[in-house]
Structures are given as structure tokens and as C-alpha cells.
């Protein structure tokens, strides 16, 4: 066999092999086969068994036709098989979706119920929270108000205490000023303006200053001024008191002396004179005619004079009283002294008998040593024969 013949035979065998080989699978058939792998195929078979059966038959037929190289028929049947199977799948999908929708509806109802429950709980909890917040806010405000009121009360209390303190200080100051004024008035009772004028003026000035300071609210300085004023006033009173008492006593003595003199002048048969011997003043009541000639006993008819003298001595009990006997100059001096002394003693006894304290009376006789008239005449001698009641004072 030649090489050319062998080539021809080979070409024929190749052509025969190619002619007998299965043609390319139509893509419609491939698509159908791919569709058959759909996971929902079983569901589609249940939902539309007729369609699936028909599809299967058409698919098998298309496959056979392809095997038989009848490609056009295979393609058409594959297409129809696809359409039917797709329809069946669509129906199954509808059922699945309906079931899903139904489940979703149930789930939605449950979810809405759950949401309603949670929302209700939330609303309740929110309301509680709101109420709690309001309560806390109210309590916070109440605390703030309480604190504010407390502060206000504290402030008011402080003000009241300050006012009380001020009033207390004012009262203390007024009391000190009043005390100073009382001291000043006390000083005035002893005429301190006259007898301790510098201290008195200082006290009065300090009181004025204290009052000014009181008006301006300077209580401490006012109290100090009042204290100084009181000291000055007390000092003035202290200084003035003895002088005042002395002057007052002098005034009283003068008045008493004058009264004594007047009262003495009112006794009938008595002549009154004043005289001064050294520091002593003497009110002399001369009583003549109590004794006859050289006698030393009192004659009758002199009770009025003696009663008047006794009353006078008793009325002025502070005066020491001398009873001095006097005579004229007729006779011996020693004899005259004795007579005058005896006469003084007689008057002394008469006055004591009339209630005069004996210790106040000092009887003595001086004879004719202190005549008051001329002894050359009878009337003069009569006047010199006398008893003198002498009130002594400064």
C-alpha cells in the first residue's frame, strides 16, 4: 500500500469517526440540566407534579434528540422543558414565599406584641424615672430653700443679736451715763459746783461728751466718758461734801443762833447782848434783880424768868451754857466772888429743877470784875448785880 493510499484511508476513517460522533450539546439542554439542579426542584415536584413530569419527559426527549443528532428538535424540547420546569419552580417559590409571608406576619404580630410590652414597660419605667427626678428635684429645691431660709434666719438672728448687742451696749451706756448723772446730782446736793468746781465742770463736760457719743452710737467711748464723768462727779462730791457740810452747819448755826437770840429776847426781864471772845461767840442773857442785897437765895416772884430760861436752854440743847454770877463793887472782892458764885449755883439749881440737864450748865461767879454799868449810881449797881446766862458757840 502506497503512502498516498494510506493517507486516503486515514482521512476516510477520520471522516467516518467524526460523522458517527455525538454532536455538540445544545446550550438549551445544558441550561435545562442546570435548572434541574435547582435546590427547590423537589418542592416544585410536589407543588406542580404535572408540569415537572411533563418537563422531565421533554428533557429526556430533548436529550434523546440530541443523541440522535436531531439538534433543532432537541433545542425546542429543551426550551419547552425549561419553561415548564421554571413555571413549576415559580409556583413552588410562590408557595414558599406565601408561607414565608405568613410566618413573617405571625412574627410581626409577635414582634409588635413584644414591642408593645417593652414599650409599656419603658413608658412605666420612664414615668417612674420622671417622677423620681421630679421628686429629687423638688427635694433638692426644698433643701436649697431650707438652706436659704436657714442662712436667712441665721442672718436675721445675727442681725437680731447685733441689734440686741447694740441695745445692750446702748442700755449699758445709758445706765453708766445715768449713774454719772446721779453722781453729778449727788455732787450738786453738796454744792460741788461751788466747792469743787473744776471736778464738777469736768464731770458735767464728760457727761455731755458721753451723751454725744451715745447719740453717734459710739457706745464704748461713751461708756468710758461716763465712767470718767462718774469718777469726777464722785470726786467732786467727795471734795465738796465736807465744805458743804461745814457751810451748811455754819448756816444752820447762824440761823439757830439768830433764833436763839430772838427767843432769848422774848423772855421778859432779860436783856440780851452778843459778844465775841477769841474764837467763841457768846449770847449773853443778863437777868438782874434775882437776889436782894447780899443774899444768895432766889426770892419769890422769879418763876416766869426761870421757866423761860429753862425752856430756852432745853430748846437749844447743843449749846454749852455758863451761869455766871456778877455783883457790884461794894464789899471785899473775895466775898463778892463767893456771893456771885453762890448766886450762880442757886440759878443752876433752879434750872436743873426745871428739867435742864445739869451737865450742860457751868455755874461760876466773877464778883464785880465785869461790870456792865457804872457802880457809882444805884441803878448802875443794880444792873451790875446780875446773873448772866451765857450760850457759847463758834
Amino acid at each position, binding site marked *: 500500500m502506497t503512502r498516498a493510499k494510506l493517507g486516503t484511508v486515514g482521512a476516510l476513517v477520520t471522516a467516518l469517526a467524526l460523522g458517527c460522533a455525538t454532536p455538540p450539546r445544545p446550550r438549551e439542554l445544558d441550561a435545562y440540566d442546570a435548572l434541574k439542579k435547582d435546590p427547590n426542584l423537589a418542592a416544585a415536584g410536589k407543588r406542580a407534579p404535572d408540569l415537572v413530569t411533563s418537563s422531565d419527559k421533554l428533557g429526556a426527549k430533548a436529550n434523546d434528540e440530541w443523541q440522535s443528532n436531531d439538534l433543532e428538535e432537541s433545542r425546542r424540547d429543551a426550551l419547552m422543558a425549561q419553561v415548564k420546569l*421554571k413555571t413549576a419552580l*415559580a409556583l413552588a417559590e410562590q408557595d414558599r414565599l*406565601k408561607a414565608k409571608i405568613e410566618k413573617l*406576619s405571625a412574627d410581626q404580630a409577635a414582634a409588635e406584641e413584644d*414591642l408593645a410590652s417593652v*414599650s409599656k414597660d419603658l413608658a412605666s419605667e*420612664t414615668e417612674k424615672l420622671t417622677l423620681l427626678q421630679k421628686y429629687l428635684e423638688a427635694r433638692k429645691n426644698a433643701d436649697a430653700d431650707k438652706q436659704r431660709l436657714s442662712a436667712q434666719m441665721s442672718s436675721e438672728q445675727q442681725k437680731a443679736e447685733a441689734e440686741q448687742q447694740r441695745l445692750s451696749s446702748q442700755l449699758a451706756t445709758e445706765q453708766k451715763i445715768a449713774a454719772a448723772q446721779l453722781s453729778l446730782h449727788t455732787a450738786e446736793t453738796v454744792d460741788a459746783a461751788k466747792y469743787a468746781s473744776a471736778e464738777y465742770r469736768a464731770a458735767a463736760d464728760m457727761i455731755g461728751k458721753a451723751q454725744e457719743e451715745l447719740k453717734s452710737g459710739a457706745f464704748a467711748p461713751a461708756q468710758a466718758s461716763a465712767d470718767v464723768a462718774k469718777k469726777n462727779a464722785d470726786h467732786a462730791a467727795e471734795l465738796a461734801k465736807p465744805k458743804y457740810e461745814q457751810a451748811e452747819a455754819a448756816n444752820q448755826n447762824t440761823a439757830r443762833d439768830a433764833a436763839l437770840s430772838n427767843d432769848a429776847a422774848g423772855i421778859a426781864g432779860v436783856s440780851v447782848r452778843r459778844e465775841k471772845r477769841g474764837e467763841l461767840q457768846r449770847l449773853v442773857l443778863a437777868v438782874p434783880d434775882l437776889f436782894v442785897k447780899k443774899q444768895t437765895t432766889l426770892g419769890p416772884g422769879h418763876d416766869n424768868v426761870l421757866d423761860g430760861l429753862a425752856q430756852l436752854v432745853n430748846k437749844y440743847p447743843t449749846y454749852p451754857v455758863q451761869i455766871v454770877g456778877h455783883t457790884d463793887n461794894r464789899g471785899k472782892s473775895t466775898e463778892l466772888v463767893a456771893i456771885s458764885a453762890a448766886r450762880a449755883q442757886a440759878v443752876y439749881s433752879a434750872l436743873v429743877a426745871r428739867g435742864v440737864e445739869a451737865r450742860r450748865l457751868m455755874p461760876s461767879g466773877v464778883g464785880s470784875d465785869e461790870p456792865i454799868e457804872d457802880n457809882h449810881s444805884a441803878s448802875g449797881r443794880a444792873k451790875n448785880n446780875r446773873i448772866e446766862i451765857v450760850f457759847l458757840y463758834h
Partner: protein
Amino acid sequence: MSRWTKRRVFFLPLLAVLATLATLATPRTVRAGEEDDLQRQIETQRAGVSDLERLDELHTAGDEVVLLKAWLDEAWALRAKHEYDQVREVLDRSLAQAELIRQKISVSKLRAQSDKREAALTETRRKTEAARKALADTTVKKKALEASSK
């Protein structure tokens, strides 16, 4: 879609099937005017396509509609070539395709409804979770206030 249009969509394929069966049952010699009959069937199905397009509000069956139109064009071309058997075969497939499109439209509408409900459920659950969290926060806050108020 009007009631008349719904009825037409429902009955036209049925009429087409009946017409096809009648044609097949009729001997070839008596198929006078067969071409006109097929033409009417094709036109009827084409009218049905428009109705299907209107039904497909969510545009989920666009590919199938395109395919259906192509098949109807093919049927029309075959009719012109007097390939009546093939025309009927294509019309049968077109009727099945139309049914498929209706079911897919139903599926899409159900899916939309499902998605909507799922979204609503998700939203409700989200609200519930938010409310639950707010409740927990409120409880914690309340307890803290109660503790601080003692």
C-alpha cells in the same frame, strides 16, 4: 389593570390553546385559512405580551418577556414561510412562556411583599431592641437615682 384586560389575559391563552388543538385535529386538507388563524393567535399573544408587561410592575420578568417576543417574532416568520407545524409548536411554547411570566410576576410581587414584611419585622425588632435598651438604661438610671437619693 382593568377587569377587561385581566379577563383577556386569562382567556386569550386558553383560546389560543383551543384553537391550536382544533387546528391539529383538523385534517390538513381542511385547514383552509389556517395561516390567518395562526396569525390571529400570534397577534392575540402579542397583545397579551403588552398586558404582561403592564403586570410586570417590578420588571422582574424582563428577560422572559424579551424571549417571548422573540418567539412570537419567530412564529410570525415561520408563518410567513408556511411552516405551520413549527408555528404551532412555537405558539405552544409561547403560551407556556406567558404562563411562566405570570407566575414569575406573582413570585416577584410575593417576594416584594415578603421583603416589605421582612423589613417591617426587622424595623419592629429594631424598635423593640431600642426600647429594650432604653428600658435597661432607664432602669439603671432610676436605680442610680434611688441609690443617690437615700
